[in-house]
Each structure stands twice: as C-alpha cells, then as structure tokens.
C-alpha cells in the first residue's frame, strides 16, 4: 500500500478524504490500459467501452508489460494510485487474439478477473452505427437473456462483473428522459458440443411509440458497439475477500416495524398486545333473574325465570 504524502493544504486534504472508505460509496471508476501488443480491434473495443463509461473512466496511452493472470500486482498499484476499482486491460497475442481482461478490485487488491476474447467477424464499433449517441453519464438499462447466467459459475461471474461495471451511480430517483439506452447480454444454452457459448453484447437506444394503450410500444435501435465474447480464463474471488466486500453497513438496514403487517388487500393491520385479563373481576351483563336466591326447594332446583325480564327493562329505558 502506497502511503501518500501528508496533505499540505485543504484542497489535497479534501482529495484524500474523497478516497477514504465511506458508508455510501462513490461511483466506481475504471482504468483502461493496453499490453505490450494490441490489435486494432482490441483497441477499438476498449475505446468504445471507455466512451460508455465516461466520465468515470481513465485511459492510459502507453503500453504496459503486464500479464494479469501471472502477476496482477502492477494492476493493484495502478488501482490504488488512480483510485480505480475496475481495470480493463487490452492485449493481443497469437494464442489469445483480441483479448480484454476485466478486473475488479476490493480495497485496491484484485477481487476477481475475467478474460474475454472478442469475435473478429462480428465486432462492430460505435462508428459503424449511424445513430445519435446518449449523453455522457446516463444510467443504462441492463438486461441478461439466457438461463446460463444463473447456472454456470463463469457466466455468473460475468453477470456480476458486468452488472457492477455498467450500472453507474445508485440513485433514489431518475428522470424518465434519462432512460435512453439499454445494454443487452445474451447467450444460448450450453450443449454437449458447445459447453461455453459466446456471450453477445448489444447496445440499443430505447424508442417509445404511441400504442393506443396506457403503456407505450418500445422499439430498440442498435447504436453499438457490437461485441461477441468468448470466455477465456477466469480468476474467482477469494471467499473471505468477497464476503467482506458484500458486507452491508448496519445503519442501512431497514428497521423492521414489529406487529404491523399488510394483508393481501393492502390494508395495514396492527397487533396490539394488551395484558391478561382477570376474568373474575370482569364486568358482565347482570341478569338479575339468574341470581342465586334462597329457594324453598332444598335439592337445588333453580326456579325458572322469565328471560324477557331484562329485555323488558331495556325497552323501558329506550322508550
């Protein structure tokens, strides 16, 4: 861990405080960098993803001799210096052409890494699609199609990584005008012949049309980039680190209100706990006729009483 120099003025002190761990975190920043040899395609893909991630993105121009799966310490160093929790490393080699390595960090240490190969034939950059592009920093809609994202561990990691990568800032409310584009990931089912199907990434602009009904008709227009990924190497997160990273602060837990429930109709029902009642001291309706009277019959026969006596008395009162 690199310890920075002690802040000499208020501005540098504020910058340092912004990097400290907080209850509600800052937006995650991404660092884009290249390896010793890159292809046009991998660089173009990296540029396109960089433009989707603006303004929370930093791009390095120089080439770096890094092999993430052998030694990821340089990535950790860059992460801590630039306060970036995501790293995208582009490289190209004969064995792994058009390679993009996505890495996530926790506390500036590598949490997990995912190596993806881009399909040369299907790649289309942003410039290929002649449409308007959404504003910078817009929160995208995300979707994942395919059951494989829940079943196969590598694909589950992909889902977690890319959901985290593209989701942007967590906000309480959003303007409907701001729902401009959607990033869609899909994959077919794994088969005997193809156990690792390609993951298709398509980015569309959302267009709403009048439908004559309350809900609008939604149409999508592809705006790019278009990439098909092949999952290569994966580095799973260390369990202990992941557990710590998923910890939630206690303050944010919603205080559960006990004894209040909402039933199926939607009515709020509360439960009031009263103490135990002493039944012997309870005031009940007095039926004077049923009162025990000393009778002439000694064998305990209860003299039959006119039950209307009480009602008659009641009626008299009402009148």
């Amino acid at each position, binding site marked *: 861990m690199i310890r920075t120099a002690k802040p000499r003025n208020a501005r540098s002190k504020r910058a340092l405080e912004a990097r400290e761990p907080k209850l509600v975190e800052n937006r995650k920043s991404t660092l884009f960098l290249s390896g010793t040899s890159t292809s046009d395609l991998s660089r173009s893909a990296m540029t396109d993803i960089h433009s989707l991630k603006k303004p929370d993105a930093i791009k390095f121009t120089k080439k770096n001799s890094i092999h993430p799966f052998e030694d990821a310490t340089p990535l950790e160093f860059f992460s801590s210096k630039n306060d970036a929790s995501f790293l995208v490393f582009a490289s190209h080699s004969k064995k792994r052409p058009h390679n993009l390595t996505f890495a996530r*960090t926790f506390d500036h240490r590598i949490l997990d890494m995912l190596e993806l190969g881009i399909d040369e034939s299907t790649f289309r950059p942003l410039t290929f699609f002649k449409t308007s592009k959404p504003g910078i920093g817009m929160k995208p809609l*995300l979707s*994942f199609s395919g059951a494989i994202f829940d079943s196969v561990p590598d694909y589950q990691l992909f889902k977690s990584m890319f*959901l985290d990568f593209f989701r942007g800032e*967590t906000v309480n409310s959003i303007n*409907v005008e701001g729902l401009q584009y959607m990033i869609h990931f899909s994959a077919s089912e794994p088969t005997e012949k193809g156990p690792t199907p390609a993951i298709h990434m398509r980015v569309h602009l959302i267009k709403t049309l009048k439908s004559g009904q309350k*809900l609008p008709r939604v149409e999508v227009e592809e705006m790019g980039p278009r990439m098909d990924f092949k999952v290569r190497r994966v580095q799973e997160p260390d369990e202990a680190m992941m557990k710590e990273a998923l910890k939630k602060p206690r303050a944010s837990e919603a205080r559960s209100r006990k004894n209040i429930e909402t039933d199926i109709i939607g009515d709020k029902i509360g439960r009031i706990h009263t103490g135990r009642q002493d039944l012997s001291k309870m005031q009940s309706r007095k039926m004077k006729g049923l009162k025990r009277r000393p009778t002439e019959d000694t064998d305990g026969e209860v003299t039959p009483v006119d039950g209307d006596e009480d009602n008659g008395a009641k009626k008299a009162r009402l009148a």
Partner: protein
Amino acid sequence: LTCHRPVLVEKPIPIEFDMGNLCAFDTNPLDPTTYSNSLEGCLNDAARDCAQALINQVLTTLPMKSASDGVYVELPDPVTPLPREKPLPRAKEPTKWFLFAKKKGIKSKTKDGKLVYDEEKGEWVPKWGYKGKNKDSEGDWIVEVDGKREEKDDDKNPRVLSREERKDRIKKNERQMKKNEKR
C-alpha cells in the same frame, strides 16, 4: 397501425427485475432456430422484449413524481448483492484524552474564545499565538535563577529556558497527536 402492436411481454419463465439497478433477468432460452438462421434478428427480438418489460415495470410498479424539469420515478434499493470497492469505514477509536475528559467531566474551552482580560494592561489580549500572554515571561529583563539548576551546572542559558519549555510542550503535543492518528 400502432394500436395493434402488443405492449405486454408474456414469457414462459417470468422475467425477474432488479429495479434499483434498472436490470432485467430473462432466463428464457433464446429460440434455437432463429438463433442459427438470423442471429441479429433473434438478439434484436430478445432485446426488444427485455426493453419493453423494463419500461413496463418502470411505468407500472414505481412511484412517479412530477417535477419542474420532468417526470421522475423513484427507484427502490438494488437487490443483487454486488461487492463494494472499499471496506466499510472503521469507527475512529476515542483518544485517551477524550475518555479521560469524559470521565472527569472536563469540557472543551474553545467556546471561551482566545482573548483574556489582562489586569495590568487593562485590555483584552490573546491567550496564545501572536502577541500571546503566554510569551510574556520570555521577554523579561530579569530572570530568576533556579537554585537547583545552578547546582546541577546545566549549560543552558537561564533566559532561554522558558521559551525552550514552551517549545518542548509543543513538540510533545505533536508527538501525541501522531500517536492518536495511528490508532
């Protein structure tokens, strides 16, 4: 005719949502025939369905507010557990002085201000800092010599002693503050 186009999305496996992240999870498999015949068409359809489902979800389930600059929808908390970028902040340990002061009931003197009434001069002077009252003894033209120190035969000039004591106190304070930072 747009009124004939369907706006609802009906799928065998219902689509799951995480509206806090504006995300839809569609576990329905892609149609294998269209997938192999026309990949882009197949993906476009799947994407359109997901987009329609998401917009429907936004407009039907989320509470809406009208503000001066547009219609806002309130998003719920995200559902999918995603890792943080940094660990949860540690609560700062209270310093030894803080605990001592709390126990004794000593309160901070900052509210009294920096100025102190000087009887001799008849005006308010700062207690410390520039032209502070604590430095008065350092400029005295007569300095009392401590008997014990003379015996010990210290090399120090008795005139400078008061200033040195003050400087030592300052340094000690800095050292203790650094120790507190480390805790």
